């Protein structure tokens, strides 16, 4: 079942892209004219360098907090670890809008805005990956070097940095992949001047209606992403392999360290809190003070949309619920198969949408499901299906470790006591994996709710989702439209959080807590 779903809704769109880019009038025709054109080269170059610079900045910005969390225990450490993840799960349109709100006029749509937004997103990746690796490093070499007279700077350069290299490389490659395939941030903050491969696919397909050029760019993007994924996968494996034994227990910071830890934690979290906080403040800003005007007007007709923003909110809730349902229906069996070890190939297949970018997926949908046998353009189904496809890998990823941690002998014990295989799943797997299931459901819902890259291709104009509505508002001039966009962003953020909490409460209830 998961296989059939993936074959139809993932493989087919890719085939459609290949066909559109490589076949012209029934003959094989490499789109060399598109690929070698100066504008394509320009876009490819910008895509690459902005991703590289974003990566370097994100790694540098993430290191202080990674250090503090890895080396020390302090009150609120777990909270800091949780808070730093928040930007990572925020929808891209929300982050982009937050930077529109935060940055002063003039640079709010510029390369700087793009780079800062990418750093904001990816600090979490650096802190999590590097931090956990760092805490596993043996601290004795560090102490030994200190007794030999090496100062802190010297020790960091000659000991810590080389030891961290695998984690840094893994984190950098993942951040690079995210920035390379970044869509919403570039589309909103890049304005008309800056385009990456990803946004250019959208521009060509949805604005210029040049499907052949868009397909050729998608092909290029596919190859580039495959390359980055391959490199990232290698680095990740190396990270897993060279993991050292448990390092020294984290200690309370003392003396001057205390100040540095405070600066690292407070500074990082403070800076990360700034964009969302500004967003909330600006959504409440009205001429001459604060008020709920922007929110009140969400129920009114607007020239930016064919329906009221309120409808967009309802659409989003509906689509995200359906999408989360599909993602669970596909992801749960896939995770079960992956855990049984039956599905090495299936595992990879389910993970593929993670590598394929969202815009590519959306564009592929546009090409594949526009004609018979499967003409879904007129229906609303393309949106939740696309969202489910984006969310499924996360469902599998979060569920598989939970299922794997269930001792197989518990299943055997239940079987010997007379429980049939379905009964074993209900009586043993379900209660023990309930927490993981709740997390997966919440994650799927949150991802579907915030999904923008694929949705913007396939959403019907009279059925916009929240992120699409925000994008439309931002595309129109005037403070009023920006204010509405910001109000919608706050609604989106709240719904995402509410969905995650509700899933945890409902599905996680009765689950066994270790």
């Amino acid at each position, binding site marked *: 079942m998961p296989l059939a779903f993936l074959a139809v809704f993932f493989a087919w769109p890719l085939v459609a892209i290949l066909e559109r880019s490589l076949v012209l009038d029934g003959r094989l025709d490499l789109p060399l004219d598109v690929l070698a054109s100066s504008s394509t080269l320009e876009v490819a170059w910008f895509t690459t360098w902005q991703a590289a610079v974003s990566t370097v900045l994100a790694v540098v910005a993430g290191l202080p907090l990674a250090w503090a969390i890895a080396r020390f225990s302090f009150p609120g450490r777990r909270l800091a670890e949780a808070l730093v993840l928040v930007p990572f799960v925020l929808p891209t349109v929300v982050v982009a809008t937050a930077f529109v709100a935060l940055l002063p006029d003039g640079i709010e749509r510029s390369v700087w805005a793009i780079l800062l937004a990418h750093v904001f997103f990816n600090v979490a990746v650096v802190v999590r990956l590097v931090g956990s690796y760092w805490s596993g490093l043996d601290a004795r070499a560090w102490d030994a070097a200190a007794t030999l007279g090496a100062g802190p700077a010297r020790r960091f350069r000659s000991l810590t940095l080389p030891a961290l290299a695998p984690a840094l490389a893994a984190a950098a490659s993942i951040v690079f992949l995210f920035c390379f395939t970044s869509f919403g941030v570039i589309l909103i903050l890049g304005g008309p001047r800056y385009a990456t491969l990803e946004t250019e696919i959208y521009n060509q397909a949805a604005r210029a209606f040049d499907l052949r050029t868009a397909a050729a760019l998608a092909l290029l993007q596919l190859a580039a992403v495959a390359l980055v994924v391959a490199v990232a996968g290698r680095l990740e494996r190396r990270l897993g392999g060279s993991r050292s034994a448990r390092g020294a227990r984290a200690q309370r910071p003392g003396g001057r360290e205390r100040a540095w830890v405070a600066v690292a934690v407070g500074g990082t979290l403070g800076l990360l809190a700034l964009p969302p906080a500004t967003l909330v403040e600006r959504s409440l800003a009205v001429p001459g003070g604060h008020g709920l005007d922007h929110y009140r007007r969400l129920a009114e007709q607007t020239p930016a949309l064919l329906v009221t923003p309120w409808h967009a909110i309802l659409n989003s809730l509906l689509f995200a619920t359906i999408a989360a349902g599909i993602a669970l229906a596909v992801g749960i069996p896939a995770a079960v198969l992956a855990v049984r070890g039956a599905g090495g190939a299936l595992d990879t297949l389910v993970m593929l949408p993670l590598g394929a970018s969202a815009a590519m997926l959306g564009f592929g949908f546009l090409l594949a499901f526009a004609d018979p046998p499967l003409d879904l353009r007129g229906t609303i189904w393309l949106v939740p299906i696309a969202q489910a496809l984006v969310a499924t890998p996360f469902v599998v990823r979060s569920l598989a470790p939970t299922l794997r941690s269930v001792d197989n002998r*518990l299943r*055997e*014990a239940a079987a*010997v*006591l*007379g429980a*049939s295989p379905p009964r074993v799943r209900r*009586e043993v797997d379900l209660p023990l994996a309930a927490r993981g299931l709740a997390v997966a459901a919440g994650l799927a819902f949150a991802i579907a709710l915030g999904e923008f890259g694929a949705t913007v291709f396939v959403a019907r104009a009279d059925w916009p989702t929240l992120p699409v509505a925000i994008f439309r508002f931002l595309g129109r001039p005037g403070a009023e439209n920006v204010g509405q966009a910001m109000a919608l962003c706050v609604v989106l953020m709240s719904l995402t959080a509410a969905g995650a909490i509700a899933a945890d409460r409902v599905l996680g209830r009765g689950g066994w807590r270790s």
Partner: protein
Amino acid sequence: MIRLEGIVVELGGVRILDGVGLEAGEAETLALLGPSGSGKSTLLRVAAGLQPPAAGRVLLDGADITRVPAHRRGVGLVFQDAVLFPHRTVGDNVGFGLRVRGDAVADRRRRVSELLELVGLAGAEQRDVGTLSGGEAQRVALARALAPSPRVLLLDEPLASLDGPLRDRLRDDLHDLFAALRLTVVHVTHDVAEAFALGRRVAVLRDGRIAQTATPDELWSRPADTWVARFLGMRNLIEDDAGLRVVRPEAVHVVPGDDAVVLAVDRRGPLTVLTVRLDGAEELEAATTTLTAPRPGDRVSVEIDPDGVVDVAADPYAEREAAHGRADDADDLPLHPR
């Protein structure tokens, strides 16, 4: 009665069981003894229906159940470390099999309290399994396996993760329980003393084959070959023109004299084990109950009671193993350090 015939299991291209047959009769406890890696647990999993055999049959009270899945076999299984359901109370663990079977709540409650009393944990229904000690958890696991009245009880090293007095007490309790309930039991262990204490008969498994099945007394007096003899702890192997013989340690008497030297004196509970070397000959182990044993270095003499000398067959696999460059299994047994 459970009977296994010609069981063959291959896992990952390795033959774990190679034509094993054994039988535990009605109300009989069969101890399945063997070193780790000999295939004991795999054989038990075949009996429970958790591991399908590549060849062979499993018969329960005469009916072929080889293809019957685990949940329809009606056998009980206790793992080495309890494996209780962590999300259920003690009472719900014990009652699991009854609930799955569809017993009424009142019947279930009565049976659960009956079984908890039987294993010495009366009134523990509401306890969280996380609060149980190792020995208590194992008792709950036993009650859980017994609750649905299985036709045969399979125990996979149930005492191996317990230590000291606790282990001995549970071993005695098991012995009494099996007798009182007239249970058919297959008890897997790597511990010779445990096998002898619990098994009416003992099947010795070696590298996926049964080396010998006999009562403890027969096993001790007539080990099938030198490997079995050494696995049981007999170290006095004599090889001369007459063939291979084993001298049981209690048949070796140390007497005053001057043609042997005492190498070591080792008190093991009620017995004292002396290691002596005959001048120009082999080492022998002597077991005595004396309280005035000689000391290491003393010159002594040795008399051997002919009743304690047993002819044994050569290790049937020694040559093959030597050809493969493998050490003799008995050499790396943790039970009898040299």
